[in-house]
């Protein structure tokens, strides 16, 4: 078999991307008319909060875990991190509820729903390790209380809430990487499958085209 006739992984990946996620879908400059609602902002606001979690978290990491206890500037960045996390979960939960009431898993979008839930769960664990990394009474109390739950399911040997080194390391690198990866997969799935259509509009849409608004090249006559 000639070299050129063997399967080419690079070409295969490129063809897959070009087929499933062309640039005008990855970076669209139009959206379906039904997406024009504030409900659709919750997802991007969650991502925006995550950006500020990373910014404030990186600053806290640069100066070390003791910094914010002794420095007013450090305490401000801790506060920034604290309220970014609250905002992150606030908008995430609104986003989750919105997707539920829109039954957003329709049309083959079940993986988008599933990755969204995995994101929620990994984010909870990430936040938990963060609360345990505070080195104050909050982390002390949460740790000694939470240990009973971890002990009850036998995972303390693997995930020890009272081991600051482990909790801090998981919090600043392992779990943020997991969250970032899942966000990327989740958003790419949205871009691949598009935003779920309204309930009842899953059928042929020939009778909803009335010439108003911008039509994509594929629907133009």
């Amino acid at each position, binding site marked *: 078999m000639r070299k*050129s006739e063997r399967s080419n992984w690079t*070409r295969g990946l490129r063809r897959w991307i070009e*087929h499933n996620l062309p640039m005008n*879908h990855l970076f*669209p400059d139009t*959206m*379906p*008319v*039904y*997406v024009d609602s504030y409900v659709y*902002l919750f997802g991007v606001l969650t991502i*925006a*909060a995550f*950006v*500020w979690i990373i910014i404030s978290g990186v600053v806290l990491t640069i100066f070390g875990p003791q910094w914010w*206890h002794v420095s007013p500037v450090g305490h401000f960045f801790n*506060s*920034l*991190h604290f*309220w*970014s996390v*609250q*905002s992150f*979960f606030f908008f995430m*939960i609104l986003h989750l509820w919105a997707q*539920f*009431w*829109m*039954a957003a*898993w329709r049309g083959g979008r079940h993986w988008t729903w*599933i990755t969204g*839930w995995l994101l929620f*769960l990994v984010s*909870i664990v990430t936040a938990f390790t963060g*609360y345990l990394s505070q*080195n*104050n*009474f909050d982390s002390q*109390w*949460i740790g000694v*209380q939470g240990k009973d*739950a971890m*002990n*009850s*399911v*036998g995972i*303390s*040997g693997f995930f*020890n809430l*009272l*081991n600051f080194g482990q909790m801090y390391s998981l919090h600043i690198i392992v779990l943020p990487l997991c969250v970032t990866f899942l966000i990327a997969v989740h958003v790419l799935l949205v871009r691949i499958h*598009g935003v779920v*259509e*309204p*309930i*009842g509009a899953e*059928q042929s849409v020939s009778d*909803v085209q009335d010439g108003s608004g911008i039509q*994509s090249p594929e*629907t133009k006559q």
Partner: protein
Amino acid sequence: MSPRDEILQTRSYPNDRFPQIPYDLIREITLAILGMGVLVIVLAFGLSSPDVPALTAKQVAQQDPELLVQTELNALTYQSAIAQYGPPYNNQSGSLQALGSFSPQKWAGIQFPIDTANDYVLHPLSLFESMNPALKSALNQWEHASSHQQQVWATNLQKVLPHAQFSSSGWMILPPSVNIGPLGTISNAYLELARTGLLEAAIDKVDGPTAVTNRTTSLLFLENQADTDYASQLNMLGNEWGVIKETGNYPGAVWLWFYSLLYQIPPYNTSSAADLMVILTVIVVTLILICLPFIPGLRDIPRWVGLYKVIWRRYYKKYGLKNG
């Protein structure tokens, strides 16, 4: 060009079937980040964040020396919550959780062995016995006494402890007639060690300049009465939703409300396996929610409730409602 290259047809895109309106994704994410920045900066400036220092043995020795002596006595006589806990600390069963024969805690076994008498009392004090001959003698007396004799001394101290007086410098003063053997010397040395602030380091066997980041043993020392008393003053107990709030009036992990709620209701709130039951319940509920797209009935709830009609009201008004 490779012989196999061809003009690709992108797959049909569901969104392209609908009328389109202009959208600027990059502008949207940029404005979202900037707007969110304003929000969190305002919140950080306006509301700050909590930072109540951890409870230390030094603090307990200074503010409630009787409690520290009680904690020491419980550890010495293996009566403390950790001494009675079970896996992963020891082979007792005081906090062993099981549902019938289902007990992951038991299966996991002992992973952090803690001998409360030695780890919390005898070893830390032994580090300083060379500086205190009376302490060395007292420790020697205790360690060579029979279990029965140790129990007699401990019981006598337990009886008089609520009536003990403490000097302004923190020394425990007991009636001379009470027979507590070496426990008077041991307890006062323990109070003195705690007041130096070095007790936790001694418990964790910190014996060099490098950072010790696993403080499991010393964190468990005050985990029962002392931590609970302090948490009670800060409104942090379970029935005050303390495990999902931070100190002060700051929110904590409020998204764990369901998990925390289960501990407050039957049958969880009266079960000796509450933690195990709560975790199993949360796992089951979470799996159901994750698999929602595949569960008939549950996946139809949005359609039945009809909230989507409010979300897409403008679309339905203009293009009509089909199958809704």
